[in-house]
């Protein structure tokens, strides 16, 4: 059997620095290949070569046995390769059908040729969707669809173009668990239809579940390859980072102390959260688990003063929390948002400007800002959060890897000396190595006496890190588990409200 796509000694240098080197691999037709590796391991460069964005500097690619050297994204598309990214290439103001036909609308005959044949378009779109067993109305505009449904539209578009190889790059980052399940069914469907899939993700359990084979990249090299049966998750991690990661999660250095930092009593916002009560103590890491839409992120925004609450009471060290984010930061809150690009960082501003923004008013000297103190603060933060960066003053945050960007988002709060950190999905899009550094940082913050409220949709993470886990469902806190009683099945069950957990 010939491979659908074959790499022979493929390599790519950037100004003499190899991003991918001497990579040889066969991708058999009709299989799902899981491609894993840390950020910067060369996955993106490899995908860009397949997609015709960059040309290899060494070796070659073969597509169905023929030399394949795409000069543009259009060449790759014409060959039958489709990409599905986390940022979708869809038009949210158009309908599902229009999105499918955007590069070739069916036309009315004869003199009416300038006009789109809307009925033909609708019927053919319905046909494509039915072939995928997708239950999507072709006439709906995309902005009324959920992120998961939009992703399915993207898949439908790939199929509509008769793609033979479909590449998924971190497709689940913005999906709910249910949408993720649906996506996985769609991927199973693709395999059953004889399509080939490359699936790239940091969520190793998903890779393991979906893939037939695994390929691991590290420092631009293919360091591991084989059937999925040979790769359990510890081996995947080991291969990716090139050493044994004895524990991704830190052993907690100090136990939680007595005094409550955050006390929430009966907090309600109609339709968002209902009668939420919880307490975070000094030195404690409280996990907040729940499905998307369960009210966990909404609770964080209300606590930070970004959205209003109708009833109830939230206190920080005994003082009621009031006002907007500015006042609450002064009271001792810090908020690491789930959207670091949109809400956490000034992407084109320097690392230093980002790191010093929340505390900028404290860095005043007798004559305006004190440039030395700003530089010193940024430098000290770089060391504290173990930031890998060259030039704090000139390098824009955009140039950092996801993990290092996240370290900036957390680090920028430290000079404001927060008593309570709210961290919403602190390791989203962060590779394993940086992830364990961020966990270490969180442990140190707790050991120094801050309280941490950690929101995550990865239960593993919460179970590895937290002292207690509260579960939210439909706006309510439905259960709280102590570390000694952590039980994956029961926590997930309470998130779905299938059973009640232990009341705290």
């Amino acid at each position, binding site marked *: 059997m010939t491979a659908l796509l074959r790499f022979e000694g493929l390599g790519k240098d950037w100004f003499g620095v190899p991003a991918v080197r001497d990579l040889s691999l066969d991708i058999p037709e009709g299989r799902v290949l899981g491609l894993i590796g840390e950020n910067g391991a060369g996955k993106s460069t490899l995908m860009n070569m397949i997609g015709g964005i960059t040309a290899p500097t060494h070796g070659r690619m073969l597509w169905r046995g023929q030399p394949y050297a795409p000069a543009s994204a259009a060449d790759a598309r014409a060959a039958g390769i489709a990409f599905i990214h986390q940022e979708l290439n869809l038009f949210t103001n158009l309908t599902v059908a229009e999105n499918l036909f955007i590069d070739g609308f069916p036309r009315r005959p004869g003199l009416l040729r300038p006009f789109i044949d809307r009925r033909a378009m609708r019927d053919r779109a319905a046909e494509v969707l039915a072939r995928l067993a997708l239950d999507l109305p072709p006439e709906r505009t995309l902005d009324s669809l959920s992120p998961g449904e939009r992703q399915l539209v993207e898949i439908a578009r790939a199929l509509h173009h008769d793609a033979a190889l479909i590449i998924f790059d971190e497709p689940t980052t913005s999906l709910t668990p249910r949408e993720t399940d649906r996506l996985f069914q769609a991927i199973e469907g693709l395999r059953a239809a004889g399509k080939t899939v490359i699936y790239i993700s940091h969520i190793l359990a998903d890779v393991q579940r979906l893939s037939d084979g695994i390929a691991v990249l590290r420092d631009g090299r293919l360091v591991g390859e084989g059937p999925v049966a040979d790769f359990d998750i510890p081996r995947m991690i080991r291969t990716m980072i090139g050493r044994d990661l004895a524990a991704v999660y830190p052993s907690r250095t100090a136990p939680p102390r007595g005094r409550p930092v955050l006390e929430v009593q009966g907090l309600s916002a109609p339709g968002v959260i209902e009668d939420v009560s919880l307490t975070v103590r000094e030195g404690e890491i409280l996990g907040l688990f729940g499905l998307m839409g369960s009210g966990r992120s909404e609770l964080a925004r209300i606590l930070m003063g970004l959205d209003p609450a109708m009833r109830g009471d939230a206190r920080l060290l005994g003082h009621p929390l009031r006002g907007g984010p500015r006042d609450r930061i*002064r009271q001792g809150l810090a908020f690491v*948002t789930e959207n670091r690009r949109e809400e956490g*960082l000034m*992407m*084109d501003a320097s690392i230093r400007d980002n790191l010093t923004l929340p505390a900028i008013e404290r860095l005043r000297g007798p004559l305006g800002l004190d*440039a030395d103190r700003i530089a010193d603060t940024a430098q000290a933060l770089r060391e504290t959060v173990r930031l890998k960066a060259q030039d704090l003053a000139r390098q824009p945050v955009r140039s950092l890897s996801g993990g290092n960007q996240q370290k900036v988002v957390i680090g920028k709060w430290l000079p404001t000396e927060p008593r309570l950190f709210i961290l919403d999905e602190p390791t989203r899009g962060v590779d394993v190595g940086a992830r364990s550094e961020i966990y270490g940082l969180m442990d140190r913050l707790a050991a120094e006496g801050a309280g941490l409220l950690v929101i995550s949709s990865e239960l593993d993470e919460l179970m590895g890190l937290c002292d207690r886990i509260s579960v939210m469902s439909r706006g309510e806190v439905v259960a709280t588990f102590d570390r000694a009683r952590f039980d994956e099945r029961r926590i997930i069950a309470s998130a779905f409200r299938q059973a009640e957990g232990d009341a705290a």
Partner: protein
Amino acid sequence: MTAMLTQPVPATPAARPLRRTLARALLSDWFVLWLTLAYFLILLPVLPTLGTPANLANLLSNAWPLLVVALGQTFVMTIGGIDLSQGAVIGLTSTLGAALIATAGPPEVLSKAPIWGLLIFEDGGVLAGQLWLGLLAMLLAGALVGLVNGTLVAWLDMPAFMVTLVSLITVGAFAIWLTQSENIRNLPDSYVALGKGEIVSVYIGPKEEPQIPRRQVHELVTYAALVAVTLAVALHLLLERTAFGRQVLAVGANRRAAEIAGVPVRRIIVLVFVLSSLCATVGAVLYSARLEAGRPTLGEGTFLLDVIGATVIGGTSLFGGKGKVLWTVFGVLFFVLLSNSLNLMNLSTFHIDMVKGGVILAAALLDVARTRLLRGMA
């Protein structure tokens, strides 16, 4: 010999430093200044009048008031907004100020104006001759317009373009209504001196001349220059060296992230619009003093084009988050030089505006190119 000839010529490494030098020049703070000097030196042989002391003095005297107004626009653009109402503010405040401090009011001109008998009488305005009170009143009126603009943008989340367009129309019309489109003259000498008074002048000519002809005395340091330079230095320090300035940049770079980081976003937006209107007001003083009259239509026509053009050419980004006072200083110099040189070529105003429009387009393209370069280098 042959061995040397067959040595492969490294084509790309030679091209790379050149490209990098070009990129660095394009991203440099001083780029527009080099551009201005280059333009000047290239045109000088063709257009010798350009370099005469009289023309240079004229050029600078045109630059100062424009700089003052563009400084305010720089702040607004840095937060990602635009202030279209600056010209209308100039019309309003110059008229209002002139009416208040005029030393006489000719009834044949002003008797139909709504302010006649209210702010200005036959023997002058209610603050006749009182320079400082008059200036204060102008600044208050300017600040009020900025406050309304800023409040609408910040608290009602309206687009700056829309809000200031409405201000441009209504404030401009209000200013014209105030005097029924008449100019107000009879300004006190102390006011006129702000626009025309010179502190240091140079005379270039034969030494033994008993009486220096006025035309050969060229003003070098004027009150207008002093006002503009002082304001530029102050606003430079405000933007670069204060928490307020850093927060202005943060709001422009990412408003949501700034809000979550505790930046008082709304307060900053309001203050920036107030600042912009205040700058326009100071510009109004300089322009109307030079004209020796308050004129409701002073900031109309292509004035807006000049302000926005100069600011954008300087390098302040239309997308927000990037702006520097120094850039705007250079942008104003370039723009004034451009207008001046086109004037000297005896082009009609239509031609001049067509060229100016093209140059602003080029500047906007340059902004896009710079943004790409920065991202590419990252």
